[in-house]
């Protein structure tokens, strides 16, 4: 009972902590240069990085289930190109938006089956998928960018109530995923499979089916991220964004998702993604080299994992 309470406080604490750090960052950078807090800059911080927060939702599910996915960056790159090709080749725009979700789910269902049924460790299966997707993308596109996107395709540039659509996607999908994880049998089975696979099996939860479902959902969410990524500008870069998977994994982990599985929430990963975006912007406002962003991310991930392990030793 006590461990469960401190456990709940532990994860909630991470979210509160992230909010405090984000607010502190805003306050300090804003006091150095008030323009940092302009509505314009806050909007750009959210909009330019919402796709990372969205992808981190799926990644959190995967990590909570006790797995990892290093192919998500490549998947987003491939799905963005497919979406762009559909749009520029005269297919309806709704299809160009929907296809990445479906294809992402299909591709990751395959990955999930490899992990769940063929017992390939997730790091290996997704590493293989990373090579296949990124190699295939370069061979297929020859590095050519996709331009000449039709009018109305730029979903990420739409606004509702003067708030850009990526922000709505980020908020909406975070809430949806949080509800799914908290109030459904599926959500509970993901935590169960990730925290203690044997016990989950004994209580009748299908480990394999849960993992496949998690990967399928993760793929579909990756598809949404890919559409947000593809529709932000008027050209789509046909190469895999360097290091994107690491940023997404880092957001999940710093958001409080335990790399050992079984613990974490999607609110945390979204907050962590926002924090990284804010740090990236503040580095420019403070005239600090962008290389520090990577260093800071590295330190944050190390600190979070060390703290997580220390807590496990203490409570477990």
């Amino acid at each position, binding site marked *: 009972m006590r461990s469960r309470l401190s456990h709940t406080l532990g994860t909630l604490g991470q979210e509160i902590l992230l909010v405090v750090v984000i607010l502190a960052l805003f306050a300090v950078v804003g006091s150095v240069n008030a323009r940092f807090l302009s509505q314009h800059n806050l909007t750009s911080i959210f909009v330019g990085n919402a796709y990372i927060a969205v992808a981190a939702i799926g990644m959190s599910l995967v990590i909570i289930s006790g797995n990892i996915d290093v192919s998500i960056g490549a998947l987003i790159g491939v799905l963005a190109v497919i979406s762009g090709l559909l749009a520029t080749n005269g297919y309806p725009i709704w299809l160009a938006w929907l296809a990445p979700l479906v294809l992402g789910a299909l591709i990751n269902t395959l990955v999930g089956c490899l992990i769940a049924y063929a017992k390939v460790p997730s790091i290996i299966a997704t590493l293989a998928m990373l090579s296949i997707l990124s190699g295939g993308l370069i061979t297929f596109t*020859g590095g050519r960018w996709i331009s000449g996107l039709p009018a109305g395709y730029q979903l990420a540039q739409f606004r509702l109530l003067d708030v850009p659509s990526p922000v709505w996607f980020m908020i909406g999908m975070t809430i949806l995923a949080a509800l799914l994880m908290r109030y459904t049998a599926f959500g509970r089975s993901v935590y169960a499979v990730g925290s203690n696979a044997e016990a989950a099996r004994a209580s009748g939860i299908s480990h394999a089916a849960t993992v496949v479902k998690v990967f399928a959902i993760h793929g579909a969410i990756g598809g949404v991220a890919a559409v947000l990524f593809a529709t932000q500008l008027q050209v789509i870069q046909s190469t895999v964004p360097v290091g994107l998977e690491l940023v997404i994994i880092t957001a999940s982990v710093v958001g409080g998702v335990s790399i050992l599985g079984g613990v974490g929430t999607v609110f945390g990963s979204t907050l962590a993604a926002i924090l990284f975006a804010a740090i990236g912007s503040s580095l420019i406002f403070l005239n600090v080299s962008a290389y520090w962003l990577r260093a800071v991310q590295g330190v944050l991930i190390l600190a979070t994992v060390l703290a997580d392990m220390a807590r496990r030793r203490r409570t477990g």
Partner: protein
Amino acid sequence: MKRLMTALLGASLLTTPAAFAQSAWTGGDGQPTTPLACSGESPAPEPGEYNGGTPTNAPDRKGKDIKVVDIPKLVGVGYFASTSSGMAEAAKELGSVAVSTDGPTRANIDEQITFIDNYITSGVDGILYAANDPVAIAPVLKKALDAGINVVGYDADAQADARQWFVNQALPNGVAKAMMDQLAKEIGEEGSFAIVTSTFTTPNQARWISEMQAYTEKCHPKLKFLETVEAQEDNILSFNQAQTLINKYGDELKGILGMTSVATPAAAEAVQQNGLCGKVSVVGLALPNAMKPYINSDCIQSTILWNTVDLGYAAVEVMRQVADGTLKPGDKTVKAGRLGELPIVNQSQVLLGQPKIFTKADINDFDF
């Protein structure tokens, strides 16, 4: 414990010095510079001693019909399609050169080597190449020289002794002059600008930034440099960085210099999405296709690159004269058809000229 650590981290992050004085533009390489004259022709630098290779026992090709193969980094892309069209134009004008383009469908050095090897075996008079890797391509090019084949590079060079001549599309000081003159023309002599580059250590970009600083101090001393930000070669990151520059400097920012073909269109997009067309200029290196949406909508005025058609044209003109023996080590210029006299630079390179500024008037004539 965790909270403490993260709090410490946050604190250490926030106490980073807010600003530090900068004498040199950030992102430059600090190497010596050779800024061009502010206006008019700059005296051509001494080419120096020839350091290219020589074909072994090449047959006398003077005035004879020659068969030339062009092996670019890859085929099927607009960039090399346009160099090919320039080659065909020169071949047609000369009448004595048969040139064909063949090569890998992806920029792969191993495949490129195989193509060159096959053409050495099948027998050609001349090989034109744009190397995927300067070192890895050298042995097969030397093999071509040993077989008596004339070898001329363009766009991307190999080690100098593995070929005879290289047609260089632009020198760093030429890029610098084109960029800064265009920027001053668009934002005025006293405007403030920031730079979006790939990384501070990328050799080409760092060289260009140093040359740009030297040329600006000499020719546009009142232009105000704000800062350089890094954006790797990442589209979305470039957009976010340009966006942040706009947010940070507000009305003070009059121009953004894009140092890569990724950063320039992304900066243009940021300007357009912020409704700052005409208020913030974007000047930079980019492929015309990527800039067409912004230039055709009058948001951005120009994009800077070399004329790829001219590059291919010059490569064939140089090849003809190398085969004829009329371009020899020690020459200071070479005649290149409609392009006139091109200077010899860097020991064994032919300089195409100054970079081309594409505007709404002609950008739609190019497809790459």
